């Protein structure tokens, strides 16, 4: 193979490669274009229409001024913050215990957590539907659990299997001698937790915070069937219905605003996600 034909081949391969990549990323390009087109009620047929109707942030302004969206945004923030706090205070200690301690049923539980976090979304959906029926039955006794303040507990519980594994494998990498040295110094458990473990688990905090916030912000199915007005509910019940197709510009803008924090956190947490997948594959 001579060098000039190799160059042509390279050029050809690169152009093909770019075209394929752009085609695969087109749904993102499209939804952004749909959100900024000057006439939000039409479905964008070609990018020429961006020139024809002009570019405007009108759809975004409409979304920001929409009262329903505002309520949902506040609820989502509330739910995401509570979920994150719960996850930090409940899952990190548990992950630490799974890493350092020996107790009855530890391996069984870890195995169980692995299966439910790797078997796919089906078990999660079934658990949610079962929970929905259970909450309905509780209503017969006058206990209404389908509320904004219950949602973070449901979310945090769903995060337990995967994040326990994540935190456990993080602590597995930290040398045991760190906590053992403190014991030998005669520290009690309270001191060890606050002086040794907390400072050493900064990365675990960030990990749980990222995943907890991202999970709670992005979740829509549970909020959707429980009828709790978060952004996920807003888009799942409205943009996925007829309204989403009748007013595509508005909902494109709304879903971009909903998606932006998740995409940013996704990029930030990229290397941890890779880590998490490796953990899953190892199991």
């Amino acid at each position, binding site marked *: 193979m001579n060098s000039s034909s190799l160059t042509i081949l390279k050029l050809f391969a690169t152009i093909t490669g770019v075209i394929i990549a752009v085609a695969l990323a087109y749904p*993102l390009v499209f939804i952004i274009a749909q959100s900024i087109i000057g006439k939000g009620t039409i479905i964008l047929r070609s990018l020429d229409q961006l020139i024809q109707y002009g570019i405007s942030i009108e759809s975004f302004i409409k979304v920001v001024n929409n009262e329903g969206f505002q309520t949902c945004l506040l609820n989502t923030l509330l739910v995401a913050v509570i979920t994150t706090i719960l996850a930090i205070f409940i899952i990190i200690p548990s992950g630490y215990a799974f890493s350092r301690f020996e107790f009855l049923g530890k391996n069984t539980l870890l195995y169980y957590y692995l299966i439910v976090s790797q078997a796919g979304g089906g078990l999660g959906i079934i*658990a949610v539907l079962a929970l*929905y*029926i259970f909450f309905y039955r509780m209503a017969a006794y006058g206990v209404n659990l389908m509320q904004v303040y219950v949602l973070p507990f449901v979310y945090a519980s769903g995060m337990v299997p995967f994040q326990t594994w994540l935190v456990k494998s993080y602590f597995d990498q930290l040398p045991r001698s760190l906590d053992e040295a403190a014991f030998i110094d005669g520290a009690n458990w309270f001191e060890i937790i606050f002086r040794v473990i907390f400072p050493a688990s900064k990365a675990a905090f960030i990990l749980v915070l990222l995943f907890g916030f991202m999970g709670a912000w992005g979740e829509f199915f549970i909020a959707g069937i429980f009828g709790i007005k978060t952004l996920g509910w807003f888009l799942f019940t409205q943009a996925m219905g007829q309204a989403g197709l009748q007013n595509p510009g508005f*909902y494109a803008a709304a879903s971009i605003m909903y998606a932006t924090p998740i995409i940013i956190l996704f990029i930030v947490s990229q290397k941890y996600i890779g880590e998490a997948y490796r953990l899953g*594959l190892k199991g």
Partner: protein
Amino acid sequence: MAGKSKSSILFPTRIALLLVLPSLILYLFFNTWPMVFSIGVALTNANRYNISPDPAKIKGYENAIACAKILKETPEYRDKASTLFDKLRIYFFNLSHALYKLNEIINQSIDVSKIPRDIRDELAYSTSQLYGLPSEVRRVFNCTELNYTTKEEIIPVVLLDKLDSLLSLSGTIKDRLQYAQLFPEEVSISELRNLTSKANTILSEIESGFSKLAVRYDEYVSETIERFQKERDELELRFIGAENFAKLFNDVRFYNALYKTLLFVATSVPLKVALGVLLAVFYSSNLVLGRKAIRALLLVPWAMPFLLSALSWRILFRPQDGPVAAILGLDMYTNEWHAFLVYNLFEAWLAYPFIMTVTQGALRGIPKDVIEASYIDGASVFYRFRRIILPLVAKPLMVATILTTGASLQVFLIPIVLNGAGPTGAICIPFIGCTSGPLNEMLLILGYNKVASGTEGGEYGYAAAIYLVIVLIILAYVAVWFKISRKTGG
């Protein structure tokens, strides 16, 4: 031994339990317990009416049943009822005679002011006989007065309503006849004709209704008791054993969902694995320049939150005016297989970054000289792929394929967001039968529809049975996954 005792001193079990317990309680209460609870639900007739019923309503039905039994069995009440039926028969006959006479006159098209007095009187008389009748019927068959408080009526509500409207209708005729004597020009013959024909229709319906009731009184009351019993039972959560499972294995939609789900696994898994591997191999090649930037672009489906992707795909594939649907000529709202194809495309698009990343990781481990050597040998592209690349990526790819098979087996959101698993049409399964439903309903969607759908939702017991079967299917899949991963040592 020494290490173990040291660790059990330094890391006492009670501290471990203290640390693990909150997460365990949270998890057990919101995830595991509802699942266990739903095993119980699957053995009951739970539905939207009985999941949290109103005790007063149940008591009402019980009272109505007890009352109907007394009406049927006590001679005193039977006599009252038969006296009432006799009375009704006579009164109805009188009214129909009066209406008949009136009709005859009207049909001769005489002046409204000249309707003979005796006809008017007869109508007025037979109407006046009816006055107390609706309340008398209600009183004779009134359970609340017999000290059985209930809102249910023993006598068919339709019949009672018709009796009321007959009374008001014949009252109107009587009034109009009187009015016609004073102001003949304001009452037309056609108005009277209209009124009498209406009255005749209702009267004949009521007559036949009550005479049937009188003739087969015992039978009717027994039927009513059965109906109350059935309605009451529907309000009560009952253990019904394996009935839901029996229903499931005779449900056409279950077999359709099983078929569609397995078909989806068979089509989408090869599609997404092939796409992911091809992209990984293509973009690992030295021939493509600027690979890093392009790879970032390729990870877009992974980075986009599901709802954003879903909205984009929904609009792109909307029949007629969606840009991609228009180019490909796809109509997922009316064509079953077009919709199925779009699900496959969407799933492949969502999942290829995973397969691609895994394959790329494995390809990175292939020594450059191995590939270069095959270039020098002049091995064909296909041969290189088949003999050199594939064996090296086989193991991680196998694990990734198993995981992504799980995703396809549990497909749920894609059909729901794209077109609600539609279109709706006739579903036929050999040896079982036919029904109407969403043609592309997957297993999880069937369970979801039975729980939360606006039209048919609320069949909780049946839904719980459906997803217990799905859990078994998922566990079977997990068992296969474990077996394979143990065999490959992954």
